[in-house]
């Protein structure tokens, strides 16, 4: 009897994994998190099929795919990383542009500093020592971090602000840092500031898109993609999914 229970216990442990293996995994840049969660829900309702999503910075996800991670779709926050996957012959061309990303400057509601779309106050606040900690994503492997750096360079504060910077591993972690009232905010993806419940905790303003090179976000369907993954890839380009992307502050490719 005891042995039987033991066997049953192990069957129970292993059951979820066997089941989970047939569900394709999507690797997605952290900035699309809330929009993609919603699109995933709609997809499951409309088709009855399931996908699971792993979020990270585009650069890290690209490295993981190159090292053999079993992802079937890769949604990058820029076109370069998606193209690198194509160049490595891990996905057929072309890398498909699915959205144009926007940046936002944000801080916790308790931080009593003004926000503006051209970051007009930031230089002043820096000089007056009002900015102690400021969050952006790591520019080395997170495209939104790289664009945030471009913005800070464009308004001429990169040198002064560097010692104050908190680097998030990806843009969602940067937003998490910026959300804390231990920092005086940060530059994050506009789409993250559209998350449910976000506006109660923080203020955010979209940054003028002229201040940085365009965030052209591209995706690829990897070589090993299953039928469900292919269906989700097609669904991401449907009008319904595009409307969700618009709702979360993305622009659509023309």
């Amino acid at each position, binding site marked *: 009897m005891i042995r039987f229970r033991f066997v049953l216990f192990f069957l129970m*442990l*292993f059951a*979820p*994994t066997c*089941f*989970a*293996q047939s*569900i394709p*995994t999507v*690797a997605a840049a*952290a900035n699309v*998190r*809330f929009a993609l969660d919603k699109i995933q829900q709609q997809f499951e309702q409309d088709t009855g099929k399931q996908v*699971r*999503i*792993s*979020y*990270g910075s585009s650069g890290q996800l690209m490295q*993981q795919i*190159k*090292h*053999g*991670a*079993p*992802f079937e779709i890769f949604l990058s926050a820029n076109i370069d990383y998606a193209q690198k996957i194509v160049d490595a012959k891990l996905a057929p061309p072309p890398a498909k542009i699915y959205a144009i990303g926007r940046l936002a400057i944000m801080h916790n509601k308790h931080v009593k500093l003004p926000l503006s779309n051209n970051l007009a106050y930031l230089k002043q606040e820096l000089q007056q020592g009002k900015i102690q900690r400021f969050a952006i994503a790591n520019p080395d492997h997170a495209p939104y971090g790289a664009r945030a750096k471009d913005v800070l360079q464009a308004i001429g504060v990169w040198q002064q602000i560097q010692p104050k910077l908190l680097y998030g591993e*990806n843009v*969602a*972690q940067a*937003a*998490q840092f910026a*959300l804390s009232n231990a920092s005086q905010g940060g530059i994050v993806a506009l789409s993250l500031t559209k*998350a449910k*419940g*976000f506006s109660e905790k923080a203020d955010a303003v979209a940054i003028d898109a002229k201040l940085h090179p365009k965030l052209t976000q591209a995706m690829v369907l990897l070589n090993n993609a299953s039928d469900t993954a292919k269906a989700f890839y097609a669904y991401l380009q449907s009008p319904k999914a595009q409307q969700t992307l618009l709702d979360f502050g993305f622009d659509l490719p023309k």
Partner: protein
Amino acid sequence: MDWQALLLSIKLSVITTLILTPISILVARALAFNQFRGKAWVEALAMTPLILPPTVIGYYLLVGFGQQSWLGQTLQTVLGTPIVFHFSGLVLASLLVNIPFALQPIQRAFEAIPDDVRDAAACCGLNRWQSLWKVEIPLVWPGVLTAIVLCFSHVLGEFGVVLMIGGNIAGETKTLSIAIYDKVQAFDFDAAGIMSLILLIFAVCTLAFTTHLTKKIGVNRG
């Protein structure tokens, strides 16, 4: 609350502990009772994971077993699945990281057995296996129990190495500690709080339970 992640963590802990404990008993016994050249080096090597950051182990596994290395490619052709970003990779990593936690308490327990006891067992005509099973294991049982609890709880809380080679795949490599990290990034502090609380309660309970049990065993023997 991410039950799938909790279940996955428990599964990883159970498998790691089940593989590591018997091996550790044999290795710890060999190390405790034998003197040989280079023993210090073997012991040092077995202790290394204790002071080496898990990210370093994760890095070596990623580079060594990834698809870009010949070892990773060979293993993938043989096994049919990749090791990294797969549950089997987490098992391998957990085994490596937990060697000191399993080995140390058991080895100390073996070393505490007086030579007389083992001589007496030999005089009674017990061979090595009988001596191990009937005399030594009952004596080192508190050490084994400590090893099991340490291993189990340590795997349950393992983060760095899982982050490096796991890839945060739900139901496959998304363990509880990774799920907590992920929930915080999704601004879902409630879920992260509940899961953290579960790990905290579990940690305190297991330690209290082991301390209690170890004392009880000691009292019974005394």
